[in-house]
């Protein structure tokens, strides 16, 4: 039936193949677009408007933002989140690059190493966090048992306010360095071999080749990893929730020393039922991510041509 109607319409208004294809493409795009509007855009706008509403009653207010700027815990969450970014992003990229370079040199079982280091990234964050949580346990955990053999005094790990943030960062680094490694490996493949050959003929050493050829030509890869890594670190939630919450205590402990902006937002929305205040936190986080990303693109995105 459809065929016949199409044929009829063709007789009346002959339609170019290209136009027809475009129309089909648009119709296919409409559905995801509708979905995107309902699931992403509308809630985002709704959250913006909610952040300017009072918790009880209706009307326009900037109360939520005023409270936010005076909120000691919010600033602690911001500071912690920055610490997560500063600690995890450079280290996971550096380790990823090291791994990529090491694997590039290996002749045999390259696939095996690639798989081993990439495995954490594709494992569920919740599962990974719980395994680490058990290893970090001060009394029954593997890490303290290992320290015992080496005669190092046991540590409190996640229950020590000075160590907890570093412990969580370690888990994050361990998990995402495999991803950096994979992207760096692809980046390394893209560097033309003849540059190295030419450098070798000119008598350049290994270190010089790395700093003058490899690193500059990896710039687009570095930009990509830095931007995605920073956004991911700014949005940290799952690891903190699973490593620190439970048995009656809230995520982000002990003493709020591991709380991140997203965890704080979540607690305001779903434990204190203050959706309006939580929306204000979300809006501030959105602005943070926007600014940081723009800044990174400006600073890191230099074109290097050889």
């Amino acid at each position, binding site marked *: 039936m459809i065929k016949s109607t199409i044929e009829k319409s063709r007789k009346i208004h002959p339609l170019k193949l290209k136009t*027809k294809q475009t129309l089909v493409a648009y*119709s296919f795009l409409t*559905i995801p677009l509708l979905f995107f509007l309902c699931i992403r855009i509308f809630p985002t706008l709704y959250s913006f408007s909610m952040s300017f509403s009072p918790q009880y009653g209706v009307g326009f207010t900037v109360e939520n933002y005023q409270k936010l700027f005076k909120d000691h815990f919010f600033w602690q969450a911001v500071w912690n989140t920055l610490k997560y970014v500063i600690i995890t992003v450079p280290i996971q990229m550096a380790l990823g690059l090291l791994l990529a370079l090491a694997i590039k040199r290996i002749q045999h079982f390259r696939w095996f190493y690639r798989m081993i280091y990439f495995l954490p990234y594709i494992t569920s964050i919740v599962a990974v966090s719980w395994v680490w949580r058990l290893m970090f346990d001060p*009394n029954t955990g593997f890490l303290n048992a290992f320290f015992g053999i080496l005669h190092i005094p046991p540590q409190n790990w996640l229950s020590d306010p000075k160590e907890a943030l570093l412990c969580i960062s370690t888990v994050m680094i361990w998990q995402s360095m495999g991803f950096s490694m994979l992207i760096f490996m692809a980046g390394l493949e893209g560097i033309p071999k003849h540059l190295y050959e030419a450098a070798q003929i000119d008598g350049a050493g290994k270190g010089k080749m790395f700093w003058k050829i490899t690193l500059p030509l990896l710039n687009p890869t570095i930009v990509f990893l830095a931007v995605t890594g920073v956004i991911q670190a700014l949005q940290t939630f799952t690891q903190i929730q699973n490593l620190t919450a439970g048995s009656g205590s809230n995520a982000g402990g002990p003493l709020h020393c591991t709380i991140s902006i997203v965890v704080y937002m979540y607690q305001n929305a779903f434990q204190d039922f203050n959706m309006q205040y939580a929306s204000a936190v979300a809006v501030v986080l959105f602005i943070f991510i926007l600014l940081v990303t723009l800044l990174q693109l400006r600073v890191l995105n230099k074109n290097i041509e050889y």
Partner: protein
Amino acid sequence: MKKTCIKLLLVIMAFSLVALAGCSNSDNSSSSNGSKSKKQVTITYWQYTFPAKVSEIKNLIQKFEAENPNITVVAQDFPYDQYNQKVAAAMHAGKGPDILNLYYGWLPQYVKQNYLQPIPKDLLTTSEIESYFVPMIKASKINGKYYTLPIAVRSLALFYNKDMFKKAGLDPNSPPKTWNELIQDAKKMTKRDANGKLQQEGFAWDVNGQGYHAFEEVLLRQWGIEPFSKDGKKVQWNTSHGLNAFTYWINMEKKEKVGEPNFLTDYNTAFKAGKAGIIIDGSFDIAAIRDAAKFNWGVTTLPVREVGGLESNFGSYWTNGIAKGVTGEKLAASDKFIKFLISAETQKEWLKNVGEIPAAVSFANDKTISNDPIYGPFVQGLKNSHATFFVDEAKERDSMSSQIDKILLNNESIDKTFNSLIKEQQQIRDDYFQNN
């Protein structure tokens, strides 16, 4: 061209209709149920996932539906950690249940958020409620109204591992009677390895579980302090006695080192694993401990300050309320279900299968319950039970546990932290009453 455009539009509309139909699925199903037999009413009941309660509610619903063939009750349960979020999200979206089961300490927040409607007068009036239930439930009277009714109440007692008592050279049939005895016994059962790591704890000292209730309603009262003013507005521990009680409690962990709050994740896991000698816990854990414990254990009443001294206990309960916005037939059905839940018969069955003690005052002198070696201590504790009037249970607990972390993890002084703790607790109450 025009026709193709129209066709495309039709396709899009058809798709969006399907999508919309998907969104409003739940409404459709209930209305189609209604058309089958005209008077059929479906109500939903939400509770958190506590296995014994979930299966008991299922049985009760079967019984209720047999008695009321025109009412269908759908019970849903969610993990404890997510329960409040689930309720918040559903209520804000207008997709909440008809009847909610909630911890009595959450009630002020639920009422403030407008999730609940007062118990209808034709179900039970305020004075009928007060004469039917034990006096403890007065803690859920808000602005002179009751919003929820419990099936059962709970009190605290000591669970102790008789095998561990024996191994440490203690008499397994004379558990500690005073707090000092508890500390002495616990010290004998605490074992650490050469590196100082805990291998077995004598007393599972904790804050987040039942520990802070034991402090507020047991220790403070035994040290001569009424923890909060009658109207719930004032924190009253700001005295030297309060500080003494607090110091005594903290020092069980800090000085006597009888246990650690996070040993084997939490106090009842440690006990079930046979690695904790004594814990403070509620009757609701009896079933779980009976299933898990592979050793001899017993229950006794909470310790006192000195022999013959004041006995005190913390009472608490989970309670059932009807959601705001439930009207007409659904409201009538919800009324009926709640009436069924609070009936004496249900309460008796609840004790047998869940382990919580009946909330109706008529059971207070039931000898078959109070003479039971396991339930007895809880029933005895119920006589001196106080249910704390929380304004924001989660916040109050969090404040308590963070302030104590300052002492235990950051080595801050007990007196200074005590003062900031009182200030914080008072602030939480001030904030609540200011907005109400």
